[in-house]
């Protein structure tokens, strides 16, 4: 398959993730959408690394995967903490800072 095929697939995946981030109301659902978007970025990095014959892109993918795991762990810990205080995980209900 050509590089273009992989890039197109990643672009479609990224847009599906963006759709999820915009439309989901539950905070965990929004985080799952962000996961899909980061996944699309990883596919792009690996595809470019493979087609350009440069291993740096794959090293970068190791970094993005690790940072994403830390981000999800902290994000979900925050969701659980907010739920313990406000008894809700719906993003629209968290409007404490609204004037």
């Amino acid at each position, binding site marked *: *398959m*050509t*590089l*273009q*095929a*992989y*890039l*197109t*697939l990643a*672009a*479609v*995946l990224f*847009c*599906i*993730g*963006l*759709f*999820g981030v*915009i*439309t*989901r*109301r*539950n905070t*965990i*659902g929004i*985080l*799952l*959408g962000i*996961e*899909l978007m980061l*996944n699309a970025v*990883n596919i792009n990095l*690996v*595809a470019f*690394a*493979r*087609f350009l014959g440069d*291993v*740096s892109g*794959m*090293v970068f*993918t*190791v*970094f993005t*995967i*690790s*940072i*994403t*795991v*830390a981000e*999800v*762990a*902290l994000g*979900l*810990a*925050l969701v*659980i*903490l907010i739920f313990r205080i406000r008894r809700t*995980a719906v993003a*629209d209900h968290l409007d404490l800072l609204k004037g």
Partner: protein
Amino acid sequence: MSLEPIAFWGLAVALLASALAVVLTRNLFHSVLYLALSLTATAGLFLALDAEFLAAVQLLLYAGGVVTIAVFAIVVTERLVGDRITQTSRQLFTGFIIAGALLVALLAIFRRGPLTVPRPAVSGDLTRAIGQSLLTTYVLPFELLGVLFLAALLGALYFARPDD
């Protein structure tokens, strides 16, 4: 090499279908299970790109770790069965317009500059090359990653402390 297009199209269909299910299904728990399927399909795509090490990392960290944490978060904040777990979406039209516009723009850019890079043959062991690059050229970011994980660990412990 003739198997690669078949693998690509099969994995692409599985990936996009499960990704659509992640953002469209009403049950949050099913959404996480579909996410595990799409992450596994991505690991398959990494295999099709000759990156065996990254496929293993993807399966262990994402499909193993992230999905487990997400299931725990759902169990704590919602019930696994019943009404609470169903989630509604809002602004479907706005989301469709924004995501669709971005997709059209990206595809237009791809069409303008067709990237006809030939796929080079695999030179040596890619896993070995990744390891060597990680511990020589990129050793400083690698160490900083350890600091980040320590901070994330302390942060998660701080959030999870019992009420006093």
